């Protein structure tokens, strides 16, 4: 069973300060839930930069190679067709499709990569049981503290209230 404490703050600055204070008090399992990306929260939460660019590159290069090989194989190897004495392996004519396929492969990989690494699609989540958590996509800046046991719950609750959270909610998975 996973447990969290959610605290709502009213501005991105307050959220950032609260997250920093929570970390310095030894809470490390933190997440921020906000209506728009908050500058600097990644450093506070020590999130590593995403490796999506590498994924995009690999997918793009694979797409390009795949497209070129298909064109070369079909036109020059499997069914050579001499049109106006043009070379069978006509590299320049294969460039447009090679480029487009690279873009398509890379974009699809990035799109699905973003949602896969975010753990989405996921239609239910324990946080959504908290009615006031709806503000997380409107104007509330929430911090989530994952806790292990009852002592942790109480400590996190006290810390959040002390840091000036507008409201604090307890969430349990499967509750």
């Amino acid at each position, binding site marked *: 069973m996973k447990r969290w404490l959610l605290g709502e703050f009213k501005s991105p600055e307050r959220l950032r300060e609260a997250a920093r204070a929570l970390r310095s008090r030894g809470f490390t399992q933190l997440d921020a839930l*906000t*209506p728009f990306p908050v500058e600097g929260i990644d450093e506070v939460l020590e999130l590593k930069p995403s490796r999506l660019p590498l994924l995009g590159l690999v997918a793009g290069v694979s797409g390009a190679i795949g497209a070129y090989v298909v064109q070369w194989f079909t036109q020059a190897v499997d069914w050579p067709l001499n*049109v106006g004495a043009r070379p069978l392996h006509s590299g320049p004519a294969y460039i447009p499709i090679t*480029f487009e396929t690279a873009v398509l492969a890379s*974009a699809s990989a990035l799109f699905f990569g973003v949602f896969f690494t975010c753990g989405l*699609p996921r239609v239910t989540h324990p946080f959504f049981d908290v009615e006031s958590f709806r503000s997380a996509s409107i104007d509330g800046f929430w911090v989530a503290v994952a806790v292990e046991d009852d002592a942790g719950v109480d400590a996190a609750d006290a810390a959040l209230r002390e840091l000036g959270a507008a409201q604090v909610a307890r969430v349990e998975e499967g509750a």
Partner: protein
Amino acid sequence: MSEPAPKAPVLADPLVQHPLIEGRYTGAELGESLLRPVLRPPGWGWWALLGLCSALTVLFVVAIGITLFVGVGTWGIHIPVAWAFAITNFVWWIGIGHAGTLISAILLLFAEKFRSSVNRLAEAMTLFAVSCAALFPLLHLGRPWKFYYLIPYPSVLRVWPQFRSPLTWDVVAISTYLLVSILFWYMGLVPDLATARDTAKETWKRRAWGLLSLGWRGSAKHWLRWRTGYMLLAGLATPLVVSVHTIVSFDFAVAQLPGWHTTIFPPYFVAGAIFSGLAMVMSLLLPARRVLRLHHVVTEAHLDALARLLLVSGLFVAYGYVQEHFFGWYSGNPEEMHAMEILRTGPYAPAFWIVITCNVLVPQLFWNARLRASPVVLWVASLLVNVGMWLERFLIVVSPLSEDFLPSSWRHYVPTWVDVSLLVGSLGFFGLGFLLFLKLLPPVPISEVKQLQHELDASEAFAREVSMKAGAPGGGP
């Protein structure tokens, strides 16, 4: 102090007399004002337009049906004018799509803050425009139900598509463009769908938007990956825009026909695409801004920026016309010279001079700042540019074909009612998609506008702090 020194402001409002957001709102107010068009039931104007567009869509379906059952003989095409309205519509529609990607992707890469309020609308326009565009080459195939011959599927006949033909390039380019536009648009939409889910009162709306928003919680990890992915998609979409219209221009430029066989075509087509697309963005944005009451986020600063872009891309297009005619003359080739001459003085001259008026003269209005700020002038000008750009595409397609190398085969082109129905019907189909979009999805990116407002607040506060420190005697660190 453990607090790091304040960073330089992320941005200052680039046009102080024209703010990017009129007034200041709380996050909830901003969200509500941007979701109002979606949450409220539609008005009579929306239903009236929907009725009109549905009727035109029915006409479109009828015209497509006639084309499928009877054949392309129902069009006005013949030999030598074997390409006409269908290809004109295709080039025009796909060009319109390009401004959507330009506004959303290229301006995102350049960190142009004014894009945030208009990009969703422009991207939606792209999707419907590209969908319309994609239909025309298929219909033009003659036997559209055999379109899958263009895809390299492993058939027992071992018949492969001809990859040296621009037709297969088109297929790959358009389908890639459509798919990447959808992915980019949907990725940008997910956080706003979550806002819509959390704002809606009715359960069924919450469920529908909840499903579409894929369980977005706005976690810091989500935002980090989303921003990386969104930026990379923008980076991919930018060369894609240029490549797609370049490939469309190859359809013409690889032919040896005088008037088509020129190296100016790729940049000339791309410039024309962006020009016509911007005009269409304005034609849709200005009424939408008024009806949906978006004046606070689509301000005069946005209109000013769009009008400037229209002027700049119009100048590119004008340069293209000059180049085209100059090289027609400079080639010294009688056929080339003739291809350019019939535009100016031949049977197509009226259309040509309308093109020059709409595409070259009208945008020159926007050197004037007062005209740039006038929605009525902008709207009329954008409609004229749309007409001018359609006629330009028509002249590119039809004029060189009708009078080519051999005078004995010259023949001019007259459209049939099926041709006209396909054009008008596609406009209705486009309008139908756009009206449904306005009612079902948030038309302005809410999270981006909220972030923009927060950044503007922060930079204002920083500027105030700096000026206070500078003003105070002996102040400063």
